[in-house]
C-alpha cells in the first residue's frame, strides 16, 4: 500500500492543470494568427484602409495572445479559486490518495471522496515531479506528487506498478505537462 498526501494550493493546481503553452502544437497556429493580425493592422493603416479593417487586425492579435498564451492559465486559476471558495470556505484543501491492491481511494480534507478501480486506469504516466494514473483522454486522472509519499516512495511505487499492473501502459506525461 502507498499513501500520498499533499495540500492542493493555487501554485500546485496551476502547475498541474496548465500546460507549457509554447509546447502545445496549437500555439504555433496562434503565432501565425498573431503575425497575420499585426501585419494586417500595420498594412491596413499604411494603405489608409478604413479603420474597421485595422480593428479586425487588432481583434486577431488580441485573440491570438489571449487564447495562445494566457487563456489556459487564466481558466485553471479561475477554476481553482472558485472551487476553493465554493467548496472549501476559501481555504486550500488536503488530498490524500491511498493506493491499494484492489483500488485507489481518494480523501479530501480527511473525508472519503472517491474510489477508482484499477480497471478505470488507462495509463501510468510519469512527469518530473509527479505520477499520473490517467483515467481518460483529457487531462484527468489520479495525481501523485513524487515528493509527498507518506508511505512508500516514488521509486518503489513505480516498481510496484510495473510488477502488479503490467497491463497499464507506462509512458511519459504529454510534454506540455511535464513539470
Amino acid at each position: 500500500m502507498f499513501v500520498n498526501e499533499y495540500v492542493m494550493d493555487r501554485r500546485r493546481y496551476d502547475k498541474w492543470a496548465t500546460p507549457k503553452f509554447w509546447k502545445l502544437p496549437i500555439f504555433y497556429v496562434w503565432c501565425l494568427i498573431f503575425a497575420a493580425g499585426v501585419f494586417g493592422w500595420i498594412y491596413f493603416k499604411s494603405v489608409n484602409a478604413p479603420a474597421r479593417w485595422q480593428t479586425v487586425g487588432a481583434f486577431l492579435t488580441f485573440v491570438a495572445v489571449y487564447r495562445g498564451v494566457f487563456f489556459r492559465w487564466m481558466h485553471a486559476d479561475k477554476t481553482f479559486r472558485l472551487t476553493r471558495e465554493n467548496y472549501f470556505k476559501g481555504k486550500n484543501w488536503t488530498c490524500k490518495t491511498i493506493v491499494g491492491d484492489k483500488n485507489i481511494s481518494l480523501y479530501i480534507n480527511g473525508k472519503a471522496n472517491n474510489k477508482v478501480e484499477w480497471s478505470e486506469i488507462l495509463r501510468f504516466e510519469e512527469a518530473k515531479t509527479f505520477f499520473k494514473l490517467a483515467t481518460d483522454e483529457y487531462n484527468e486522472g489520479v495525481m501523485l506528487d513524487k515528493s509527498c509519499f507518506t508511505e512508500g516512495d516514488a521509486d518503489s511505487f513505480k516498481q510496484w506498478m510495473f510488477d502488479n499492473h503490467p497491463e497499464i501502459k507506462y509512458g511519459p506525461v504529454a510534454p506540455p505537462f511535464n513539470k
Partner: protein
Amino acid sequence: MLLALQVLFGVLVAGTGLGLIVDVAKNRMDDLRKATGKAWAAGFTVGIIANFLDTLGCGSYAPSTFMYKLFNQMDDIDIPGTLNVGDTFPVIFEAFIFTASVDCDPMFLWIMYICAAVGSFGFATVVTKWPRNKIRYALGFVMIPLAIIMLCKNTGVGPFGAVGTATGLHGWKLIVAAGLNILWGALMDIGFGLYAPCMATCLLLGVDGTACFPVFMGSCACLMPACSIEFIKTHRYDVPHTIGNALGGCVGVFIAWKLITGLPMFWLINLVCVVLLWTSYTLLSAAQKDKKAGIA
C-alpha cells in the same frame, strides 16, 4: 491584396471555433448520422430567431431555452451545452462582421476586450459572493433612466446633449468605460449578460451607436469559448441541434447585421433604448421571481 487579407481574416476568425468540428468528427459521428430532419430544422430555426435577437442585444439563451422546452426537443441536461457550443460560432461571426463593417478605434477595442477578460477571470471569486438579486434590482432600475436619457439625447429633449459620434474613447472616459467593462465581465460569471450594460456604457460616454456593437460582441466572443470547451469535453450537447443552431445562428446574425447597419442612426438608438428597457424588465422580473421563491 486588401481583399485577400480580408478573406484570410474572416477564415482565421471562423477557425477559432474549430473545437466543435474536431469533436464531432472524432467522437460524435454516430449521433450525427442518427439525427432526424426535425431535429436539424428545429436547431436551425431556433438558431436564426435566437441569434437575431442576440445581435440586437436581447440575448439568445432565454429565447432558445424557451423554444427548446416548448417543443420538447432534447434532454434538459443537454440544453446548456447545446446553447453554449451552438452559439459560439454565431457570436464569433457576429464579432467579426461587426468589427469588419463598423469603424471603431482598434486600441479602444483592445482595452475593452482585455478588461472584459480580466473581469471574468480575475474577479469571479469576488462576484460569486455578491447578492445576485440585489444586483438584478440595481441594474434593472438603472437601465430605465439610462434608456430615457438616451431617448432624450436622440430626440434633442432636455439638458443631456446630442448622441455621441466617437469611434473610440480617450482619457477619463476610457478609464470609466474600461473599469465598467471589468465589472460587466465579472458579472457574466453570475449569469448577467454583458451586451446591454456595455452598450449603455459606451453610448452614454459618447460612442457612436454602431461602433458600440463590435465592443460588446468582441468582449463576449472572447469569454464565451471558455464555457464551450467544458461542454465539448464532456459531450454534454445535442449534435444536430448544436450544428443546426450554429448554422441558423449565423443566418440570424447576418439578417440582424443587415438591419442594424441599414437603419438610420435615429432609429438605431431608439431600438437600443427598447433593448435596454427589455433588459431592465427581464432583470426585474427574474429578481421578483427569485424573491418570491425565497432565493437571495
